[in-house]
């Protein structure tokens, strides 16, 4: 691993502090892709995706190669890219889970309100199950 400078760190911070670019890094973890393929899940233009790719390339997170007419982007074969992918994946996992946990807790809290107001509303096992 070459020595990293503050400038490198700024590039990395900048590159990963954008939800579209984190999405691109995650997509490239599956395998290399063209700009068109990378643009598919996002509602933004091809030139905008190209600009995002340039930012990721400057931060050494991806490399790009020409294959015939098409330029392919792939994740850099460094553990840094692997670490970035892994962290992006878990960051998303927790965020999605937390959103559902919010809903789940709201249901649980509203189930508990009648229980405290009226003793006849006893909580049953089924109420605690999956939605």
């Amino acid at each position, binding site marked *: 691993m070459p020595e990293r400078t503050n400038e490198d760190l700024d590039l990395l911070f900048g590159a990963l502090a954008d939800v579209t670019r984190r999405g691109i890094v995650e997509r490239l973890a599956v395998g290399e892709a063209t700009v068109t393929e990378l643009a598919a899940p996002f509602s933004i233009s091809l030139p905008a995706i190209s600009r995002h790719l340039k930012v990721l390339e400057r931060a050494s997170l991806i490399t790009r190669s020409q294959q015939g007419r098409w330029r392919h982007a792939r994740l850099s074969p460094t553990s840094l890219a692997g670490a970035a992918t892994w*962290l992006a994946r878990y*960051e998303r996992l927790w965020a999605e889970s937390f959103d559902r*946990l919010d809903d789940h807790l709201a249901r649980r809290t509203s189930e508990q309100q009648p229980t405290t107001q009226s003793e006849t509303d006893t909580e049953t096992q089924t109420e605690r199950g999956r939605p």
Partner: protein
Amino acid sequence: MTTTTTTPQLALTRIFDAARALVYEAFTDPDQLAAWWGPIGNSLPRDEIEFDVRSGGHQRWTEVFAADPRIRVNVHFNLVQVVDGELLDGTMHVTGQLPEGLEPFETRVRIEFHDEADRRTRLEVRQWLPEHLESPSEQGWLEAFTKLDAMLAA
């Protein structure tokens, strides 16, 4: 555990509008975890969830992917330290048929439950990178990731 001394690479904070006991229960009651845990579209078969929540105990479950039911991820969360209502800390062993060519890995996870005003709960999640993605020369980078994640979670 080999990663206890290093800084966690993932640091997330979230406030939930529910009492601490309820949030803790959502993590430690098998029926409840299945209702909210995991990537969108996954399911956790109830008969493959097995919990023994105490220091030295475990939480085990299987995640089945809706898009491809052949993808079955086995999660064994070996609990090293448990404080009832306050803390779950241990090593998560992730194996099975993982999505997108992901290798099996181990990751330390620490989940803290804190009281907030108005019967709300602050959840602090800390997670450590699997060892195969870590190398000592990258410590600076990993600290940078930690700060970045803290910033994104704020």
